[in-house]
Every structure is written in C-alpha cells, then in structure tokens.
C-alpha cells in the first residue's frame, strides 16, 4: 500500500523534471524577455508617435511664424518703395526698383526679382533665381494676391514670396493689377536649424523613455516571476513527497489567486493521503488482530486434531478420512496464521534484524537438513568457514526455506542451490544465493507479480499447499537485509530465484528501505554460475 502511494508521487516528480527539462531552453522567450520587448516597443512607439506629432505641430508653427513675418515685412517695404515709382518702368528703373527692395531689409539677405512687361531684373547681378517655379510665376501673374512657396534647391530650403503690385488708388482711376511683380527668395537655414533642434530633442527624449520602460519591464517581470518561481519550487517539493508545502499568499492578483488554489490543492492532497494512510494502518492492524485472535483457538484445535489423528486408526474409515482432512487443514491454517502474523510484523515496521556472525554455508546446510531436503536439493556450497557474514540467522533460514519450498512445490526436482560471494564495487562483499528448479519456468506475464502476496500463478488452482505468502515473506526478509531478490527463467529451462545479501550491514541505513522494489533488481541472469 505504501508503495502504491509512493509510486504516483515519484511519477509526478519525474514528469515535473521532464517538463522543466523541456522548458529550460525556451528561457530566451520567457516572460521577462517578452515583457522587456513589449515595454520597449510600446515606449519607443509612444515616444516616437508623440514626438512625431509634436514635431509636426512645432515645425508648422516655426515655419508659419517665420514666413508670415517675412511676407508682412516684404509687403510693407514694397508698399513704401513703390510710392516713388511710376509705371511704365524702363529696364533701368526696374533694376533700381529691385535693388531698392533688396536694400530695404539689410539685416537679411533678400534676393529680389522684379518682372514687368516680360522684362526682369534681379537685385543680385545675373541671379538665375532658380527657386522661382513656373507655378508660382503663373499664380502671381494670374491672381492679384500674394503667394508663397517653400522649395528645396540643391538641398537647401528656401522660401519664395511672389507679390504683384497694384496701382495706387486715386480719383478717377481704379486700383488694379499693374503688371509689376516682385519675387523674394530667402534662405530657410535658420528654420532648418530650429527644426533640427526639435528632432534632436525628440531623440533625446526617447532614450530615457526607453531605459525607463526596460526598467519597468524588469520590475514587472520580477513581480510576475517571483510567485511563478515560488510556485514551481512548491510543485517540485510536493512532487518530492513534501505534502505539507504551502505558498505564502500576498496580494490579491491572479497569481495570488493561483497560489491560493495551489495551497488548497496541496491541502486536499495531503488530507487524501493522510486518509489513505489511516485506512491502510487500520487494515493492517485488522489483519494483525485477526491473525492474533485466530491463533489461540487454532492452538486448541491443533491439540484436539492431534489427539483425534492418533485415534483415527480406531475409527471407521469414513470418519477417519474426515478427521485426517480436518487435521491437515488445521495445520495449514495454523501455518497461514503464522505467516500472516509474520507479514503483519513487517507491515507494522516491527520486524528487526538480530545480526550474528554466521557461516552462511553451515546455516544453509542446517536449513536443508532440518527440513529433510538433503536428498532432493543439490547444493553447491563453499567449504565451511570460508563465507562468513553478519546476518540474521533466523531470517536467512526463512529466506532459503521459502525459496526451496517454492521451487519444490511449483517447479520440479531436481532443485539446485548455489551460494557464492562477490565484491560489489563500492558496497563491500555480497553473498548470492541462487535456487534453480527443473520445472517449466515462470510465464512472462506472471514474472513481475510473483512476489505479490497470495498471488497464484495458476488461477484455476485455488488450493495449494503453501500459504501464498512464502515469497512475500522472503522478499520482506531480504529487504530487511538491504538485499535484493530477483526471479527469472533460466535459459536452459526452470525458474531461477536469485537473492543477493550484503555480508555486512555497516554503513547501511538501520531501518528497512521499502522503496526498493525487489523485482526491479538489475541482476542479470546470464552471468549466473549455474548456467
């Protein structure tokens, strides 16, 4: 029962380890990295979009302000200057006019182009005035209103303002377009510098924002990952069998919720396991009590049947047969109760080793002799006095007797027994007892179950001479010695049982180690000296 409880826990443990193994390489795509990437992306996107929008607004503002100021100044100056001029203008006067306009704003480098009647004059001699596009020229010629255009010529930004001049309003005449137009080209380098400064400031703002976002992401990842790590540790701890593991629940977020659920699950699991253990203990105690209670009446019955057996010869044949049958069954029952009590002691953990320095060959010899098996069992034992060890002599007797009895009962004679010792690496000297019968061997599907209690290899044969507990008791005794027992089929036929026992209990844990399943022993049969 304890094994059954333990093995799922073990399985969960290995599963958890397997999952951890699978997840370990994907740490690069873990929550931390994803959070950092997401935060950084959001920060960059937010900074850039905000910066871009702000930049656009600011740029529009800068440009609008500067060009409005330029246009106003330009118009004012032209208005002042044209008062001194009268149309039509000769080429010389046109040039003079352009120069006058250019000179009116000495602090800025204004370049002026004046056009009239197909003639044009520039303030700078032989100025190609490449900034003036045909569109602006057409617009100024057709609309009697000022126009401007921002152009980029040879990579340099410039503002071009076209200003038609209307006639003076005077009595008798109507103010109309005069055909004179003035164009102003002005470099926008100052504005370019202001805008560049804007870009730089946006770029400078995004770096601290990015750093801050990454820090926040790391902080958030820490907040998420710490409970997750705690949860993982707790799960592993539970898988290792520490059912009392609980998580500290702080906060009220989803992770705290998860921790809470985990605690509830762990508590429920612990409660179930405790309940199962209680039930197991009760069942064991019941079995022990039953065997104990049966023992006294059985002793009385044995005494009675012994007497009846002696008198059977004087009874009539039918009654004699019945009496003998009762007598046999009573003996069997007494043996079964003894075995049950023995196994109950193992289950209760009450079985203890009474170690003694013994000669194993001698001990086995006496076991065979006591049970009158010297003729049926062919024993290959080392010379007396050569193989000695600290073992429990009574339990060794039980082990050997059960194995041989099993071989005689279920296999077929001759039965071979062999005892030898070997040096196990790092574990000292070990003794090996092999029992080989000449029967049909053990079916492969029965092999893993052969050491189970009351296991019958033949389901139809419900009644055997044994109690059904012999091999189980053997197993428990071997385990008490920290040894192993192993069942296999010999290549030449027959069932081969191998028991390995350490010859010294020093350095081994004092209590029994129930975790080790006897049939899991990796002892190979090929190397068997009996082969």
């Amino acid at each position, binding site marked *: 029962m304890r094994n059954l409880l333990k093995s799922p826990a073990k399985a969960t443990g290995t599963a958890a380890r397997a999952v951890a193994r699978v997840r370990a390489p994907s740490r690069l795509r873990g929550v931390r990295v994803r959070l950092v990437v997401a935060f950084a992306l959001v920060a960059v996107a937010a900074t850039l979009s905000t910066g871009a929008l702000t930049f656009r607004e600011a740029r529009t503002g800068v440009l609008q302000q500067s060009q409005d100021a330029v246009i106003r100044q330009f118009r004012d100056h032209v208005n002042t200057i044209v008062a001194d001029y009268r149309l039509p203008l000769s080429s010389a006067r046109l040039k003079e006019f352009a120069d006058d306009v250019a000179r009116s704003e000495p602090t800025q480098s204004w370049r002026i182009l004046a056009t009239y009647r197909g003639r044009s004059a520039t303030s700078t001699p032989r100025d190609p005035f490449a900034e003036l596009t045909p569109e602006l020229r057409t617009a100024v010629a057709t609309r009697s209103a000022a126009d401007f255009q921002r152009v980029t010529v040879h990579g340099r930004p410039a503002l071009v303002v076209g200003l038609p*001049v209307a006639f003076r309003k005077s009595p008798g005449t109507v103010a109309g377009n005069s055909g004179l137009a003035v164009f102003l080209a002005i470099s926008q380098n100052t504005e370019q510098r202001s805008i560049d400064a804007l870009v730089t400031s946006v770029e400078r703002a995004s770096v601290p924002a990015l750093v801050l976002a990454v820090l926040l992401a790391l902080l958030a990842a820490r907040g998420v990952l710490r409970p997750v790590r705690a949860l993982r540790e707790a799960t592993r701890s539970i898988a290792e069998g520490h059912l009392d593991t609980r998580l500290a629940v702080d906060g009220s977020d989803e992770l705290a919720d998860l921790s809470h659920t985990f605690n509830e699950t762990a508590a429920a699991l612990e409660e179930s396991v405790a309940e199962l253990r209680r039930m197991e203990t009760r069942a064991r105690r019941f079995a022990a009590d039953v065997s104990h209670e049966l023992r006294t009446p059985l002793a009385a019955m044995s005494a009675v049947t012994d007497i009846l057996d002696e008198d059977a010869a004087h009874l009539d044949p039918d009654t004699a047969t019945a009496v003998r049958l009762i007598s046999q069954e009573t003996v069997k029952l007494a043996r079964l109760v003894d075995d049950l009590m023995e196994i109950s002691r193992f289950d209760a953990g009450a079985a203890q080793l009474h170690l003694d320095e013994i000669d194993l060959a001698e001990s086995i010899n006496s076991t065979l002799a006591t049970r009158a098996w010297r003729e049926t069992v062919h024993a290959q034992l080392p010379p007396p006095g050569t193989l000695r060890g600290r073992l429990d002599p009574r339990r060794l007797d039980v082990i050997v007797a059960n194995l041989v009895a099993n071989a005689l009962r279920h296999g077929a004679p001759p039965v071979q027994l062999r005892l030898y010792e070997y040096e196990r690496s790092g574990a000292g000297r070990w003794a090996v007892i092999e029992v080989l019968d000449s029967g049909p061997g053990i079916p492969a599907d029965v092999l893993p179950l052969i050491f189970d209690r009351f296991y019958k290899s033949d389901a139809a044969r419900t009644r055997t001479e044994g109690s059904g507990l012999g091999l189980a008791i053997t197993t428990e005794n071997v385990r008490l010695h920290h040894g192993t027992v192993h069942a296999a089929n010999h290549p030449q036929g027959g069932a081969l049982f191998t028991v390995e026992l350490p010859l010294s209990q020093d350095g081994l844990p004092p209590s029994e180690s129930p975790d080790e399943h006897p049939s899991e022993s990796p002892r190979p049969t090929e190397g068997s000296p009996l082969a």
Partner: protein
Amino acid sequence: MTSATPVRPRTARLAPLLLSAMLLLTACGVPASGVVPAGDSATGIGRTTMLYFIRGDDLTALPDDTASTTDLKAALAFRAQHAGTVLYDVELAVWLLAVGPGDAVRAKGVTSELPAAQTWRPTVRVAGSAVTVELPPYARPLTAIATRQLLCTAADAFLTASPDTAPAQVTVKVPGHALWRADGFDRTCS
C-alpha cells in the same frame, strides 16, 4: 511551450508603425510646399502717360508733365466714369499727344509730326484688346513717323492700364486716306 510563437508576429506588426514613425522623424527639415496664397498684393504704384515724340529723327518716350492740360484730364475723368479706365488712359494719351509737346521739352528739340489739334479730338474706341484711333479727315496723309507716334502712344497707354490682357491691336483710321495697324508694342517704339 505554446508560448513561444506570439513574439515574432507582434514585432512584425509593430515594425511598420515604428518604421513610419522613424520616417516621420527622419524626413524632417523644411518641407517643400505648393503655391500657397498669402494675402493681399502690394499696392500704391502710380502711372505716367508716356507720350511718343520725335527727337532728332527718332521716337522718344517722354512722361507727360504738362500742367496745362488739367482741364482736359478733368473733362476726361468725367467721361471715364462711364467709359472705363482703360479707355480713359488711352484717350488721354492720344489727346495729350495731339496737343503736342510742351514748351519746356520743345525747347530741347522735341517735336511732333502729328498735325496740331486745336479744334479736333481723335475718337478712341476700345473693344477687348483692340484699340481703334480715328482721326478727322486730313488734307494730306500722315507721315510714317507720325503714324508710329500714334500707334506707340496708344499701345503703351493700353498696356500700362491693362497689363493682364493681351497686347493691344492698334488701328489708326484716317477717313478717305488710309488704315494703319500695329500688333501690340511695335519694336520701333522705344
């Protein structure tokens, strides 16, 4: 284990957004623009009627500086209210030309071959860009240079007054004698 996939598509979705933002920032500087209206035109230039007289053997354009013709201008200004400013300008120019150069310029050797008009006025008609100047019947035909005086003065006045329309087609009519035409500004004018 299933959590590995979403990272890459998210970056893929964000990439164009970031790219456009970067472009917005990098495509900065002073952007070029179209032609944008920017308010009123400049105003306040005056005009002078240019009269084409003869100095030596060639035409010369002289601004009208006669003070004695103010009554003439006033009379014309009254008519201009009905006739329009272009007609006024052309008419004034032709009439001033017919009056002849003033004493001050005459003293500098400026003459006119147009017969002095004391009792008549040329009739001026403007239809679109076509200007017709009709003279009273003369006893003899106009000389070539006198015709050019008339053509150039009328064309100059028309062009100054209405720079937006096409150059004038000037026709000079002398009943019974001849018809002279000139397209816009004759090259011989200035």
